[in-house]
């Protein structure tokens, strides 16, 4: 019998009622008394020397209240990279300064060099057009390859190179890996590009700042996935506001996919403007600004080699990658291509030698940072594409070669050559499940049917592993993180037995307001409806690290469990006092505290009431109130894994690919709300198919963004996507968090691109085409060219 509440049940998402009825409260919905508006002047050249910005005409425009330029922020700090990386030779990464507004130079199209505050948004935009700017356009570098070329123009003159770092992982593996590859009987080599993406959250970024001159308090409403980190960056690094004087509120947020993890200059600007004017100041990005300035994702150029025995046994993997990090180092930009990518390069496989070389390259493009999957899709794509190519070269079935090399259940915990220890997994079981739900045995018949209709059909297989719930703090600290990666929760029981649970995670589509109460309700034996989740407001919640990297349930959910355990402990004390029994004799079950061996019992709600009406509490022994906080720092990452199958039909006349079937078998450990997990996987696959077939963020050689609107940047639409068969019944619970959960938010986006590309290559091969690779997105034109070139 499926449960209808608590862990494992699928209650509908309670937050959807307000979202679907237009009652959400997003940053742009918040209008403060006396609010003024900000508009930004943005560079239309990719690299340029700012000779002058004359603001006098703009200042004289109707409604204009203030004009800011880069000059106004030279004294304040810069927005830092959150992760410190050392190059192979031990030198520190090159860290260019990232100012609030560009000063001296503009470094990408969209780089803001001035801002106008006016009574209305239109007046602010009019005044931006009235700025008299003298910018000398300089030669630009728009790709990682161009930026490293001999004599390439510099993005930052002061750091004298476009190479941010040259990282080896693990440097000690290098010689052995080189040797293994040299001596291997078979080596498969593949060059590939992991295409750059624009995140395209439905809600554009927005920030509204308020300043109270009477108290010196600032409030910032902003589209953030992690309000506490934003506050920390603004206070400690960028503006020097005392942390107790800034409240950051991320209300309802309409999707982030990574792009809203980071602190952006616009947030600092509206805060500075609010203080200067003594009035609230709002900025909301238009869609063009989103394309130009939201941190983009991916953009890797990789060569991967896979060395094997002739029977397909893996001997070594070696990769060499250029990662474009854009013009400035966004907060996680240095961590994503390194510790979220290089450490995953063993995949699901027992491969003894792995070496990763990664060069991060600064270019005249928007900053690049984490985007759903962040580093792990890039790793998975490289590995799973080269395995497919290798299987074909050796004449081995693509499933068989993967099974042959899987880490086996009895090998866990398994330490990879690239620094991770996988706690649990059963990759064969997941592959079995995939073969079943995807009816892979029926593929030949379906292929024949497609061929009879003049189409060619392919099947693509992929297995992935990822690392979620990024942690623990002591390990990431050694690896270069400049922050900790725990999370926090406070459980407050109200006098009448309802609860507020304040969490450090932030929900911007994930469904925390539904899933977290299921956990607490299960533990306390009470109704979920009594529990409210509070998130997004630094004045209400404990210091948490927000939501990204599929960490909310594994890390913050674990903090919720720990805090709830403390509640039960304290409530047990109160119940013992109420029933005049010893604490040791109290049993808690289904919301009732009872004294073992008697018929005495009190309900959780009665205990709650007593906690706040403690007329007879022994003051020395028992504190009133029922509220507990826990910080949780996990012992390890979690390791979700899965196997995906994609079946495509290709139209041989046009090269158009259509996805006919898509099956996903995932192991997420224990599941709290299966419906939400289905939804997360569906969304992730949608984004992965988008990357594989449609989405491409393209700059021309001069650094102009060619795909700067939906006219040229193809987002997946409903009719681009098939119905999915998803399954998460294979469960090897995480061994080190109290819920045994692993995280499911990014899996779909990680597992699907290689499955799609493998399927298309398989289709073309079946039609006798000698095509071993096509770079994403597999647009009809590219597929047609591959077939006919």
């Amino acid at each position, binding site marked *: 019998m499926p449960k209808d509440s608590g862990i494992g049940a699928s209650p509908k998402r309670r937050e959807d009622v307000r979202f679907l009825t237009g009652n959400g409260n997003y940053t742009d919905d918040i209008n403060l008394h006396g609010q003024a508006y900000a508009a930004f002047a943005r560079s239309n050249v990719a690299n340029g020397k700012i000779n002058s910005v004359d603001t006098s005409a703009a200042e004289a425009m109707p409604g204009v209240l203030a004009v800011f330029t880069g000059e106004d922020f030279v004294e304040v700090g810069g927005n830092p990279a959150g992760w410190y990386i050392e190059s192979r030779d031990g030198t520190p990464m090159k860290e260019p300064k990232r100012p609030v507004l560009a000063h001296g130079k503009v470094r990408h199209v969209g780089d803001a060099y001035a801002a106008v505050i006016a009574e209305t948004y239109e007046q602010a935009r009019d005044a931006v057009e009235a700025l008299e700017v003298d910018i000398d356009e300089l030669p630009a570098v728009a790709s990682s390859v161009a930026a490293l070329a001999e004599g390439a123009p510099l993005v930052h003159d002061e750091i004298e190179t476009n190479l941010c770092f040259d990282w080896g992982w693990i440097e000690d593996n290098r010689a052995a890996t080189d040797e293994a590859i040299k001596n291997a009987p078979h080596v498969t080599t593949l060059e590939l590009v992991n295409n750059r993406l624009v995140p395209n959250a439905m809600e554009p970024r927005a920030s509204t700042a308020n300043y109270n001159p009477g108290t010196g308090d600032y409030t910032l409403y902003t589209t953030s996935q992690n309000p506490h980190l934003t506050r920390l960056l603004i206070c400690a690094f960028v503006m020097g506001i005392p942390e107790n004087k800034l409240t950051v509120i991320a209300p309802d947020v309409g999707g982030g996919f990574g792009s809203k993890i980071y602190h952006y200059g616009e947030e600092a600007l509206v805060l500075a403007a609010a203080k200067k004017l003594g009035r609230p100041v709002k900025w909301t990005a238009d869609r063009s600004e989103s394309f130009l300035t939201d941190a983009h994702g991916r953009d890797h150029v990789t060569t991967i080699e896979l060395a094997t025995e002739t029977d397909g046994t893996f001997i070594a993997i070696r990769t060499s990658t250029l990662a474009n990090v854009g013009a400035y180092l966004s907060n996680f930009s240095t961590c994503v291509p390194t510790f979220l990518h290089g450490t995953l390069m063993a995949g699901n496989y027992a491969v003894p030698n792995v070496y990763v070389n990664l060069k991060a390259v600064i270019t005249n493009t928007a900053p690049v940072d984490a985007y759903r999957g962040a580093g792990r899709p890039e790793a998975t794509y490289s590995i799973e594409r080269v395995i497919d190519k290798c299987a074909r070269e050796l004449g081995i079935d693509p499933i068989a070669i993967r099974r042959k090399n899987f880490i086996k259940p009895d090998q866990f915990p398994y330490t990879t050559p690239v620094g991770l220890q996988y706690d649990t997994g059963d990759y064969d079981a997941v592959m079995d499940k995939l073969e079943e739900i995807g009816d892979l045995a029926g593929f030949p018949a379906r292929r024949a049917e497609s061929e009879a209709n003049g189409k060619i059909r392919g099947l693509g297989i992929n297995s992935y592993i990822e690392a979620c719930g990024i942690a623990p703090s002591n390990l990431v600290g050694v690896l270069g993180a400049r922050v900790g990666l725990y999370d926090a929760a406070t459980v407050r029981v109200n006098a009448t037995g309802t609860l507020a649970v304040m969490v450090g995670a932030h929900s911007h589509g994930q469904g925390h307001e539904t899933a977290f109460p299921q956990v607490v309700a299960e533990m306390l034996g009470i109704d979920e409806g009594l529990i409210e989740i509070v998130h997004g407001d630094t004045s209400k919640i404990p210091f948490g690290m927000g939501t990204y990297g599929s960490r909310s349930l594994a890390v913050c959910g674990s903090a919720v469990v720990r805090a709830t355990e403390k509640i039960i402990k304290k409530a047990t004390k109160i119940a013992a006092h109420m029933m005049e029994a010893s604490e040791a004799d109290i049993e808690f079950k289904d919301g009732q505290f009872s004294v073992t061996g008697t018929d005495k019992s009190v309900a959780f709600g009665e205990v709650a009431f007593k906690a706040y009406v403690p007329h007879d509490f022994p003051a020395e022994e028992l504190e009133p109130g029922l509220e507990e906080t826990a910080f949780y720092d996990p012992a390890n990452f979690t390791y979700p894994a899965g196997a995906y199958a994609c079946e495509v039909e290709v139209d041989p006349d046009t090269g158009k690919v259509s996805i006919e079937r898509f099956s996903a078998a995932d192991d997420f450990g224990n599941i709290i709300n299966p419906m939400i997990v289905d939804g997360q996987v569906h969304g992730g696959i949608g984004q992965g198919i988008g990357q594989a077939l*449609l989405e491409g963020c393209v700059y021309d050689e001069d650094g102009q963004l060619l795909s700067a609107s939906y006219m040229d940047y193809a987002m997946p639409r409903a009719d681009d996507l098939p119905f999915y068969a998803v399954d998460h019944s294979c469960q090897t619970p995480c061994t080190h968090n109290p819920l045994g959960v692993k995280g499911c938010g990014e899996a779909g986006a990680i597992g699907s691109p290689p499955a799609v590309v493998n399927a298309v290559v398989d289709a073309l091969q079946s039609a006798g085409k000698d095509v071993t690779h096509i770079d994403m997105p597999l647009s*009809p034109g590219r597929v047609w*060219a591959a077939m006919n070139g």
Partner: protein
Amino acid sequence: MYNFEYEKPSSVVDAVAALASDEAQALGGGQTLIPTMKQRLASPAKLVSLSGVAEMQGVSADGGLLTVGGAVTHAEVAAQASAYPALARMAGRIGDPAVRNRGTIGGSLANNDPSADYPAAALASAATVVTNAREIAADDFFQGMFDTALDEGEIITSVKFAVPQAASYQKFVQPASRFALVGVFVAKHADGVRVAVTGASEEGVFRWGEAEAALSADFAADAIAGLSLDPSGMIGDLHGTKEYRAHLVGVMTKRAVAAAT
């Protein structure tokens, strides 16, 4: 968007008068013009909405002629042009429902976007564009990307289509905009076959003469098997090379012939 005046006349005469004022511009469904204004790329001083002009409404069929009012929306053509099924189907696949419920035939033809669908339909159907001042044959109307024979302030009041014996429009969509990457309208008339191509050429919509000759002799997909277009004048961009577009014209033409009803 910059500020502008707004007028909504109820007759063609009043509309033409309103358009005589400085920097006035006609507003059809606003599906092209309003986004351009929002991006501050256009700044008309006055918009003259044509949606209240009764003479520019309605779809009617008479003998071999289908007449569509200049302010008729794509959705109305899709629903009402049953006398010309290929045209109705084409209109029903422009953009999305919101675009079809606002966008008009007059606006689409006046705009002459090189990837728009109506120009191909008008050219293949040997349509006549009727304005407040004159009648213009489709062959003379389209004068290259975003350029037409319309004079300043001249408005399209209706379009007369010669209903062909058989026709089909085949649209291969650009994945992002879903405008035509290549669209081919094939129409078989009593006096010969017309093949009009949109999306492909740097010169905008054009007729593919060689294919017309071959298909007029033998209206079968195989009849054009040996033909190919010179890629040099084709559009090459993010979504397809010149060669790919030239190839697609052939594929879509064959499909249109095969599907023509």
